[in-house]
């Protein structure tokens, strides 16, 4: 699974300050560090960037590309900032990717022409006119709309990264949302027939948002394996999470098999498993909504 480093984010205090002060050093250091640990893309998240976003994105794209060749995700809802970034972006080892275009008329109308004009990739986010889709089928409807636009604007499949939206397992809707994201991925192969080469991406760590900090990794890792099983191609993740990197590069085949067995409904005997295996089995059960989430899910 490809990794998109999420660390270059305005919300990170040091980075936010550097962006504000136009201080290239912390930004370049972080970009270099992300490249060193081998992320496939670097996400540059400016947040809303309402004021002066264009000028900021232009500056930051230049600054980052001075030190790394890794392709960039340009992440802001400010359309002007996206375009300013694309204007100065140099394709060294891949196209820049607009993160993201939502399945809402105003988002599609503003950003598809820019993607076409600058030959950029896009994250097609399944967020519709009425917000978060309620289930896998509504995700499918939004996906169809976005794909239709891709065809209209001639965005080739290989430049499209569909994001089915990962939601926190701790939220009240999790019982439907977390499994329905997986359900959507099951139909992804069919969608790829319409737009060959299309891939997928996701904000993986959102699944563990709200869970106790020390328990977030196992949720992230397990959900990653579950999504990847049905073709999830990439995830926006902490670039420096070495454990997650192991899972992303196909490691831990033993756990992967176990997770799949639980996904397929097998009642695995927890007593016959090691503590580590049992933890992954329990986590899978929570993520397929067989067990209701609680902060102590591993202790039960």
């Amino acid at each position, binding site marked *: 699974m490809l990794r998109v480093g999420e660390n270059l984010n305005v919300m990170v205090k040091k980075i936010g300050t550097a962006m504000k002060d136009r201080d290239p050093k912390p930004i370049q250091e972080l970009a270099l560090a992300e490249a060193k640990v081998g992320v496939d893309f670097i996400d540059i998240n400016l947040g809303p960037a309402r004021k002066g976003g264009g000028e900021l994105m232009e500056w930051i794209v230049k600054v980052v590309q001075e030190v790394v060749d890794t392709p960039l995700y340009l992440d802001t809802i400010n359309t002007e900032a996206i375009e300013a970034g694309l204007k100065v972006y140099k394709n060294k080892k891949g196209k820049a990717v607009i993160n993201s275009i939502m399945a809402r008329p105003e988002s599609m109308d503003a950003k598809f022409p820019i993607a076409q004009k600058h030959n950029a990739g896009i994250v097609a986010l399944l967020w519709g006119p009425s917000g978060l889709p309620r289930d896998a089928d509504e995700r499918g409807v939004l996906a169809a709309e976005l794909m239709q636009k891709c065809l209209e604007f001639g965005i080739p499949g290989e430049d499209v990264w569909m994001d089915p939206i990962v939601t926190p397992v701790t939220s*009240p809707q999790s019982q439907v949302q977390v499994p329905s994201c997986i359900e959507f991925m099951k139909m992804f192969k069919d969608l790829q027939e319409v737009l060959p080469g299309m891939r997928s991406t996701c904000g993986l760590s959102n699944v563990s948002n709200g869970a106790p900090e020390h328990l977030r990794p196992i949720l992230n890792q397990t959900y990653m394996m579950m999504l990847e099983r049905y073709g999830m191609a990439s995830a926006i993740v902490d670039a420096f999470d070495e454990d997650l990197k192991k899972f992303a590069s196909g490691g831990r085949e033993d756990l992967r098999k176990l997770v799949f067995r639980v996904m397929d409904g097998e009642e695995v005997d927890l007593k016959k498993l090691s503590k580590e295996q049992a933890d992954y089995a329990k986590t899978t059960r929570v993520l397929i909504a067989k067990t209701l989430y*609680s902060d102590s899910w591993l202790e039960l």
Partner: protein
Amino acid sequence: MAFEIPKVTYTGKIREVTLGKGPKAVTVGGETSYPFHLFEGAMPHPPRIAMEVYDTPPEEWPEAALEPFKDVAKDPVAWAKKCVQSYGAELIALQLVSTDPNGLNRSSDEAAQTAKKVASAVDVPVIVWGSGNADKDADVLRKVAETCDGMNLVIGPVVEGNYKQVGAGAIAYKHTAIASTPIDINLAKQLNILLGNLGVPDGQIIVDPTTGGLGYGIEYTYSVMERDRMAALTQQDERLQFPILCNMAKEIWKTKEAKTKTEDAPTLGDAKKRGILLEAVTAVVLLLAGADVLVMRHPEAIKLVREMIADFTAK
């Protein structure tokens, strides 16, 4: 081929919890199907209604709610007795509102004495409900537990912020703890786990999902309770297999719809009838969602709901 009604297959059972002691103790829970799905499973104990008693004369109650209790409003003991003797209350719910630090701020000792007097004066089980201020309740309910040692009270709300103190009191002095969470199924489960880890026996836990009144978000409570019963009965979720208690009366009678006088809103109909029906309908909604104990106020609303329970559980 004869038509067969599709039936839900259940794999779990709600625990039976006995409230109070002696001949008037009541057992709740024990369901093996969704509420009143008697064609699919058993509901060995019908839902019960606790009648409210306040530890200080209510000031903002609408006339209709106060009227039956006017003669006893200043004396919680007389009030409790009246509920049992005149209205056949199966449980009493003593609301210790006067302990609220933002209100009268009465001491824990005083509250504990009131609780003891009320519980001694009636032979039915007594629920003792704090002010809802987690810090103050930690002290008040702990003191109530200690002072009423062995009286098998039902004490709450026990929340994440005070479960250790109140839970310890429940364990040491053998009371039932009301595990209370803010309309959130995951937090409800977590608090039950925490109480279990603390050592509160499963037979001494009852769950309060927090409820709104009719028209004030009751659908959220309904969903949480529905999900709770699904997990408990069809997913063998042991930490949710507890009976449910809804402290609902105060939510209804504080609403604009229950308080507005007949002459101020003639189109809304008679104020008394309106309040009673709001309370009764809220109660029925909560029963259908899975409530085992309802805390109610107006005798006529209670009468309506009792009839409804009898109809729903008729063999």
